[in-house]
């Protein structure tokens, strides 16, 4: 039956995606929730929680406030704390019950902004979509709100990195290495959305000649920046030695042609050696790298939100446990988070590749940094 999982995990939800995307930017993010979202987020979805302070809170919505539709309590509490802590912006994100009672987050944001004088964004998340959806909303919200003015382009080739959160890239140095790889190849990183950059750096995103979309979460923002500044984008994660070079080449060519591109092949590839499960841009990039370096032809199975332009012609786009198990039947090689192993065929070779958005902190120390590096540690 659809919607049931006998044994596998659940991906981080949209509300966590909002918090993760905005975490380092000096804003205050409030999950409009009774309780639970906070501990889920700060335990399983946020590896920076212990060492990096950030204003992420829950509203502690009560039954009575929900029944009475008491948005005034939410607005008042947020304004009160914001006046004490003076964040650069405020974000309010929803969870299931606010959806059930029809909370108007745009209106709530408007009220908060009017009273506090602090730029405020409302996100109608509801805990029923993945982190990619929430992070995508948050990044796009930032772009709409803060990337407004005309900005002079950088002298050297400038790029923004879009869609970067620990949920896909953990805290193993991958975020820093993407930046370093681009810089080593003569590309100036204008901003990184949103690990290792400030809000002020994000505001300068229009100065870039090209954008690198490293996850589905960055795609909407890339489209917005294309519309606003004419900046083309390239989708791909620079993993592996050969594929990472290809990504850099694609950035240069996209900047030249001003055409958007996807760095990995999307055409049908016929016979496959196995399956790789993961987020669309990362999984396709790894599959491309594996083909280039190892001669392994992996089919991508994406259980998360993805757009057609990011998926290969042969890629599988399924979500439910029974559907995924059906797709995996008969496979000989499976690359996936260890929490998928119980539904994999017993005789398949299982290559564990932990994904923070799926297994949280459990295998964090085993997540490899594959940026610009060979895939030997994986296969």
């Amino acid at each position, binding site marked *: *039956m659809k*919607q*049931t*999982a*006998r*044994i596998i*995990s*659940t*991906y*981080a*939800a*949209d*509300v*966590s995606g909002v918090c993760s995307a905005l975490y380092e930017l000096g804003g205050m993010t*409030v999950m409009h929730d*009774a*309780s*639970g*979202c*906070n*501990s*889920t987020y*700060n*335990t*399983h*979805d946020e590896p920076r929680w*212990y060492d990096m*302070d*950030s*204003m992420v*809170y*829950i*509203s*502690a*919505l*009560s*039954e*009575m406030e*929900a029944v009475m539709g008491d948005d005034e309590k939410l607005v008042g*509490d947020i304004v*009160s*704390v914001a006046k*004490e*802590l003076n964040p650069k912006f405020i974000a309010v994100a929803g*969870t*299931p*019950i606010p*959806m*059930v009672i029809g909370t108007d987050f745009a209106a709530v944001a408007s009220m908060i902004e009017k009273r506090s004088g602090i730029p405020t964004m409302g996100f109608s998340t*509801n*805990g*029923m*979509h*993945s982190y990619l959806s929430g992070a995508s909303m948050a990044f796009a919200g930032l772009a709409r709100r803060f990337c407004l003015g005309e900005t002079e382009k950088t002298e050297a080739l400038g790029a923004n990195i879009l869609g970067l959160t620990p949920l896909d890239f953990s805290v193993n140095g991958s975020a820093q290495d993407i930046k370093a790889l681009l810089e080593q190849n003569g590309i100036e990183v204008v901003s990184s959305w949103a690990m290792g950059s400030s809000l002020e750096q994000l505001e300068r995103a229009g100065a870039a000649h090209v954008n690198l979309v490293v996850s589905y979460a960055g795609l909407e923002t890339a489209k917005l920046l294309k519309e606003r500044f004419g900046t083309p984008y390239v989708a791909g994660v620079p993993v592996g030695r050969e594929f990472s070079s290809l990504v850099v080449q694609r950035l240069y060519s996209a900047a030249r042609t001003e055409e958007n591109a996807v760095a990995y092949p999307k055409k049908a590839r016929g016979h496959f050696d196995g399956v790789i499960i993961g987020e669309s841009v990362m999984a396709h990039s790894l599959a491309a790298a594996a083909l280039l370096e190892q001669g392994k032809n992996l089919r991508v199975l994406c259980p998360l939100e993805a757009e057609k332009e990011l998926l290969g012609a042969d890629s599988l786009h399924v979500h439910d446990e029974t559907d995924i198990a059906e797709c995996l039947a008969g496979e000989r090689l499976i690359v996936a988070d260890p*929490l998928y192993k*119980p539904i994999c065929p017993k005789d398949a070779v299982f290559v564990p590749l932990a994904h923070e958005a799926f*297994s*949280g*902190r*459990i295998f964090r120390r085993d997540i490899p940094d594959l940026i610009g590096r060979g895939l030997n540690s994986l296969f």
Partner: protein
Amino acid sequence: MKNLRAGAVLDSTQATIAEAAFPVPFAQGLEYGTPARGTWNIVHTGMLIPQAHQIFVCAAGCLRGVVLTAAEMGLEERFSTVEIRENNLLDGDMEELIIEGVSDILQRLPQMPPAVLIYTSCIHHFLACDLDRVYDILRQRFPHVGFAQCYMNPIMRKSGLTPDQLMRHGLYSLLEPCPLNEKSVSILGNDLPTDESSELYQILSEEGFTIRDITRCRDYAEYQQMAQSALALTYNPAAIPAGEFVQQHLGAKHLYLPLSYDFDAIAAGYDALCDTLGIARRDFSKQRERADAALRHARHLIGDTPVEIDYTLTFKPLGLARLLLSYGFRVTTMYADAFLGEERQDFEALRETAPDLLLRPTIHAGMRFASREREQKVLALGQKAAYFAGTPHFVNVVECGGMFGFDGICRLAKLMEEAFCEEKDTKALIQIKGLGCGCCS
């Protein structure tokens, strides 16, 4: 932060106990969550029923924390989920989703479990889901499975029974009535086993009673034997509704034996226990002396080192603070967001005897930026106190850790000495969920 009038609800991150209101000292608003995660959640507690299977029916965002709790316990095979999606809210098929989802999962399990704990969520409450009908149908479909009605509905935490109380109630709801055994006593409602060295255990075992505790049950049959107990003891305040349920449902007598740090109250509790069991009262003067000596020894070693306590260490943090202050420990700070009604006497006493005792919240938004540095060595009792004090010297215990009575005080004094002398890896230890449940992350 603002200056505060005496007895006010505080819009601040600190105040002396003399200034604070009871039972909720601080203003409630946006909430912060510390990285101290040792207290148990409803998954940890539910897993105490041996061989039982848990099925959560919620939105994906709510499933995330519980599914990973089970995974961190290494118990994924005893845990499943039914995901609520937007169409279910619009279609009004919530009952069908639970019935068919649970049925599908049970049919796919390698072995039918003897019991299933179904956790429904806030959404079911708000949509007035007919849970009685859901459980009726499931019991008809699976007559050999016991279904426990459990909840993950944090929106109700300020209305009626709390989710914690409901969980402890649900834990014993599967016990089937049977003839009572006068020589069998159950201890209900704790996540951690009570120390066998406690006077409680000694009294019961020396008088020939069989002591049953869910934390020590090895299989479902042993769990069911708890229904035989003629006496159900509770000392966790959150377990009182479970004790009352057992009294009503199984016919056992429920005795609430409050955890206390007051020597006279401890002895009075044991007297009440003996009277209830119809056995002779005992003399606890030697145990009193041992507890007294243990505290004096610890005080001598720890000296004037500041002591900070948080509410996760024990069900009675104010009582503990009062005891330690009476022995000359320099208890400076207490972390708590609210107190139990039964702690009022200790609160009032501390206002008189230690008016400068500092109260601090743990969930107040401002605590995110509270200084975690101290000018001198601090001994923390509890994980949250350790985190906020930024100290490697802490007693790593949650929910009393099985310590009870005079023996519990002796053991706590010993743990305080050890914590004072040895450093711990605070960051690593306090982030482990469900201390004592076997979680490895």
